[in-house]
């Protein structure tokens, strides 16, 4: 059960857009697909969706080669698009029908999702009268209206305000509870950290890192200490030859090479009898790992 990519390659002319990548999603949940601009994320997604042919390798869903006809996909592309002058309900029914849903069932589904996504009042309108965020929610409805098994979300939160981001996050969590397989591509690393258990990082078409996010993080040593004290400790940090990344009002974010350096710093602060409100040894963020992998 699940999606499996093995040694997939795609070349445009002389440029290898995707170079021998492999990964699998074996259980329901969100899989993070990361990469810089032009890393091959969209090409990979298009090959998974069977709208672009691969040069070599295999892509299977539940053990069978993926095909548009056989796999119940849902897709929210990075570049948003709706018919601006056609009633929202009409275009949602159109896409649902193309996915094999009857008109009656699609109307039921539209009403259900419109209520959840708080766009009920816009359903009879044309999209050109809607805000960008509401248009995005409409397009999200197009991706899920037919209850897909595999959902591909390319930058689902870009352009959304905090309220709408919250609504969409709630829906995505509901979909995970229902056992859906989701591939999410996003530039905001905190979003990926929040949702994804497994990730792959692509750079120039190649895999630079993949696996379980927690396991990946555990292989990295601590790289920061977050400290809040009753008075300034700049002299202690200088003495310990550490670098301050950020500081204000006796709050310090300090770069360390490992946990030992952090403990040494703590000892020095305690020795000077300075009251400590917070002392947190931090593992690298996904953003740190991403930047390091891509730059290296």
């Amino acid at each position, binding site marked *: 059960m699940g999606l499996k990519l093995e040694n997939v390659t795609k070349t445009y002319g002389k440029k290898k857009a995707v170079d021998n990548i492999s990964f699998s999603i074996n259980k329901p949940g969100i899989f993070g697909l990361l990469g810089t601009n032009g890393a091959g994320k969209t090409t990979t997604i298009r090959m998974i969706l069977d709208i672009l042919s691969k040069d070599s390798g295999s892509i299977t869903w539940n053990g069978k080669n993926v095909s548009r006809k056989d796999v119940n996909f849902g897709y929210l592309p990075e570049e948003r698009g709706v018919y601006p002058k056609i009633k929202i309900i009409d275009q949602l029914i159109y896409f649902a029908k193309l996915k094999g849903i009857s008109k009656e069932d699609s109307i039921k589904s539209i009403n259900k999702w419109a209520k959840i996504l708080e766009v009920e009042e816009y359903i009879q309108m044309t999209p050109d009268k809607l805000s960008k965020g509401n248009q995005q929610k409409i*397009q999200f409805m197009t991706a899920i209206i037919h209850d897909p098994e595999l959902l591909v979300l390319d930058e689902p939160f870009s352009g959304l305000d905090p309220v709408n981001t919250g609504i969409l996050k709630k829906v995505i969590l509901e979909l995970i509870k229902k056992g859906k397989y989701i591939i999410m591509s996003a530039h905001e690393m905190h979003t990926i950290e929040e949702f994804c258990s497994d990730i792959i990082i692509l750079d120039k078409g190649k895999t630079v890192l993949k696996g379980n996010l927690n396991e990946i993080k555990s292989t990295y040593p601590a790289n920061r200490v977050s400290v809040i004290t009753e008075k300034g400790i700049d002299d202690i940090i200088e003495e310990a030859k550490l670098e301050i990344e950020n500081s204000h009002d006796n709050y310090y974010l300090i770069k360390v090479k490992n946990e030992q350096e952090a403990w040494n710093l703590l000892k020095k602060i305690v020795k000077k009898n300075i009251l400590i409100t917070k002392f947190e040894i931090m593992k690298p963020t996904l953003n740190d790992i991403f930047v390091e992998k891509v730059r290296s």
Partner: protein
Amino acid sequence: MKDIFIVMKFTILDMVKRKAFIISTIVILLLIVGGFAAVKIFSGDGKVKVLTILVHDQENIFNNKLDNLNLKELGYKFSKTDKSIEDIKSKVNSDSDVDALIINKNKDGSIVLTYIVKNLFFSNGIPEDLANILSSVYTSNGLEKLNLTKEQIASLNPVFEYRYEQAGEEVKGNIAVMMGISIILFYAIYFCAFQVSSSITTEKTSKIIEMLVTSTSPRNIVLGKTLGIGIVGLCQLALNILTSFICARIFIDKQVLSKVVDLSTITVSLALITLLYFILGYLTYALLYALTGSTVSKPEDVQSANGPVAIIAVIGFYLSYFTMMNPTGKLNLLAALLPISSPFCMPLRIMMGLASYKEVILSVLILIITIIVVANISIKIYTRAILYSGSKLNFKKIIMLYKQK
């Protein structure tokens, strides 16, 4: 197949709900009604207009013979007058349906005929038929004075019946009207097909296409869209033809209409053949436009991308249009067989009674083969080009896309 109908139905509903479509349809219908009404207004009741010619013949040179002539069929009516020249000029000046003829004799015996019209700028001299009538009446008058019998006079003034026959194949109908129909067919097919390109480019540039191609195959999108737009175009054309037909019946006198169009040549089978050629011609050009529409990523590139198809269509049209002047020539037959021109040419050859069954079947077969070939190439390139974004694809890149696996 089901998806083709879903795309087709959506395309039809999208088109007919557009304000631009509704307004343009109403405007065209109003223009048709207005055009026929204008013909009615400017041509009066459709009957031949009779020009009254006031005859001032004080010396009675024509012996009052002009008054007795019944020339209404030719469009003249002579009316003797004794009024002054000034009064006659005043009458001509005030009435556009009145001219005048002043008849005088010179001292040397020669006769002077002064023809007075309202405005010399719009006149081409004395009408030739009128000059012939005057000459004939004067001669008859002279012969009568010689005490000749009616038979003798008749033999000196013979009435010839002129007939025209063509050595080659006989052509039915009015060539000018045929050329007009050719123009209508061209515009109907061309602009209807152009909509396909416009629709595809709109979907591509507004980024809907990515959602669409994950929902159904590019083949279904191209065929559904082409059929949908074609059906709307066909209904629009049928509505225009029906309106024209009703207006012609209402506004144009039947006799006048029969002089312009040989109504006997317009049959159900001809209507069906014309419909068939409209459909085949539309499919040929619509599928070519589907190809060009899929190669552009920006709306401003649409015109230049469509250029080559427009050139092909214009060549096809002019080949059909100009060879219509010599419909029995070999070039017209070539135009009726070539797929780029046959939709604008063959229905007219059939209407003129020039096309054989073999020619029609051959022409239809060529068109069908062309459509199959063009459809395959267009769908293949559409599939590869539709997700491409960037600068307009040139011919070399399009060939590369076609060859891609």
